[in-house]
């Protein structure tokens, strides 16, 4: 198996990735797109266009391949080199540049692979990156480990709703104690924010309805109960129907943004700093 790295001159994240490979005895072939690797990457990109993410700023480097898989971005590549597919769900694409890196979803992966996740994060931290974490409350024990080892610099927690609605909203239930533990931990990171999406959900009888203002109020109350404070940054967001995974959800009427005022009023009873996301 040959490791190939497509990098760019001056790319700090490429440098971190190559350092990791060197430290772990992994030989690799490097193609610098700002030097003599430009043609090689162009050819590679055209052959694998669908697998390489590109946004308005261009392609994020490093891009890694071993001939069978393609991975992109420092955290994803190092995660793959360290644990294969074991960290899928935990680590995704980062949308942030510079010293900040995101794409870490604590609740998205297999908790039995938490140690590998912590190692990836620790390595990135050692190399000067600041880590933005996300969670929806699941895997609270993983979050505790991340917190205890000071690996996160900012936490953005989606509290999907009251614990008893998690199954309808997220597809799987959550232990109310685990949710409160995660909320409590989230508020202990250097900076943090809570948010909820006023989302539609499918009831057991198949009917679809949006979360109600009262349920968002209950969500805010859950945050207050878990933290003992009414004063946390808490944001309400409209659900983006176009991004609904379940096709049935795309059939509901979109909520107008003005509908969120009632939700904000309900939430402010328990979270006084509640704002509507712009």
């Amino acid at each position: 198996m040959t490791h190939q790295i497509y990098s760019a001159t001056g790319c700090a994240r490429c440098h971190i990735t190559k350092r990791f490979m060197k430290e772990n005895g992994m030989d690799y072939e490097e193609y610098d797109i700002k030097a003599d690797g430009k043609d090689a990457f162009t050819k590679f990109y055209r052959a694998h266009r669908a697998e390489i993410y590109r946004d308005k700023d261009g392609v994020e480097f490093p891009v890694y391949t071993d001939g069978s898989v393609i991975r992109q971005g420092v955290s994803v590549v190092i995660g793959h080199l360290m644990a294969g597919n074991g960290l899928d769900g935990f680590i995704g694409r980062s949308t942030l540049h510079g010293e900040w890196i995101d794409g870490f979803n604590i609740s998205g992966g297999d908790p039995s692979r938490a140690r590998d996740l912590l190692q990836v994060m620790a390595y990135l931290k050692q190399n000067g990156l600041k880590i933005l974490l996300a969670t929806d409350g699941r895997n609270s024990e993983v979050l505790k480990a991340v917190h205890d080892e000071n690996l996160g610099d900012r936490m953005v927690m989606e509290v999907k709703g009251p614990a008893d609605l998690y199954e309808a909203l997220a597809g799987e239930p959550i232990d109310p104690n685990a949710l409160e533990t995660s909320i409590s931990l989230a508020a202990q990171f250097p900076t943090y924010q809570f948010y909820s999406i006023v989302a539609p959900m499918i009831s057991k009888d198949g009917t679809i309805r949006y979360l109600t203002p009262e349920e968002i109020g209950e969500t805010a109350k859950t945050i207050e109960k878990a933290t003992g404070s009414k004063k946390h940054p808490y944001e309400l967001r409209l659900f983006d129907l176009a991004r609904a995974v379940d096709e049935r959800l795309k059939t509901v009427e979109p909520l107008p943004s003005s509908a969120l005022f009632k939700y904000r009023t309900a939430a402010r009873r328990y979270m006084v700093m509640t704002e509507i996301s712009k």
Partner: protein
Amino acid sequence: MGIPTIYPTGATLFDPGKCWSGYTLFIARETGCALVDMNGNVVHLWKGLHGFPTKPLPGGQVMGSLGVRNPRYGFMDYMDVVQVDWDGNVVWKFDRYEYIEDPGQEGMWMARQHHDYQREGSPVGYYAPGLAPLVEGGNTLILGHKDVKDPRISDKPLLDDVIYEVNWEGDITWEWVCSEHFDEMDFSEAARNALCRNPTMVVGKGELGDWMHMNSISTLGPNRWYDQGDERFHPDNIIWDGRQTNIIAITDKKSGRIIWQVGPDYDGSQALRELGWIIGQHHAHMIPRGLPGEGHILVFDNGGFSGYGSPNPGAPTGHNNALRDYSRIIEFDPITLKVIWQYSYEEAGFLPKMNNSDFYSPLISSAQRLPNGNTLITEGSSGRIFEVTKGFEIVWEYVSPYYGINKNANFVYRAYRVPYDWVPQLEKPNEKEIPKLDRSRFQVPGSVWKPEEGVVEVEGTLPYPGPQLCVSKVDEPEDG
């Protein structure tokens, strides 16, 4: 003009036959909300009530505020909007807009209201036939503050204006944030540059840029323009003005977009040039249906200092670059921008150039159209409230005797004329004419003036001509 040491206060003039009589409601400085009759008697005082402004409601009730945020941390943030009955009981209150924790003080909810609000039923908050504000229920539109950062406007933190609507139960049902519409406001690059460098910093919690300084919001209410199919004038749409930018605009209630506007510049078309520069204005509103001039825009065009733009000798940085030393009230057509009626130094009979500023309030002030076509004007900075006919005759005048302790000033932000039947608790007062006095015969005790005595004739003198001032009537010499 310098104000003399002594001048009369209270009611100074009243012609019952020409007035639209009623009570006049205003904030008596550092005293409370006063209701005075046409002879200046304070017939009711809601002691200690604040209000920015206070507004009358039918049934002898008023709206106002219970207090103001500590000025060390906030700028003109009124804590709440309340409705108070005749006996001083708070029957409705809203404060849950923002939770504020100022240093050394318990956290609390605040409305952060400033300058204006409107109770549903009345577009503008003053009397118009069939358009009375609701007393038991209804939504309230509130002008408030919000701290924001918006690098499109300035790198400095901003004290932004928001308009929000709250229902009787206290739920916010609509919100409009001014800065989010910055790109719709037609600022020139010169204005953007001056605004970016100095967005009108005010002292408060740190320093904040009070970049727009809105001071008036009202709905358009039913009007002929909308009846004729012009959707810009939908009755629910909101007209507002920004003192610091010279903008008067209408916001579409449904989309939030600005769909009608004059300012920030008044040089862009012949119609605007004829309208003339509106500077530092207050109380821009559409005259409600049922009143003379309905559908026209009525505004107290203060003059003074405001605007952002190219530097000039009076504004070396381009901040407050629009300057004028007199006020005018103008009523203009929102379609053609043609001025329908105006009251300024000229209509007041003051000598042009020499006495322009004898009618002048650089800040605050308002104008209310009355059912008989008269206009109640608050010349705020001198605490003068007067009623003037369409033909510019002053038929009622009142000078606030409330000077307060904290500042030696009797200014009145905004006064409202209230019909007698909105105050059922009182018998209609006996109205007594206050004739116009001859100033040359109005002396204070101890003053002696006998112009007929000690007179000698000087041989060879000519008659006195009219005034000759040290200014030219034209700016450019005529050809030839």
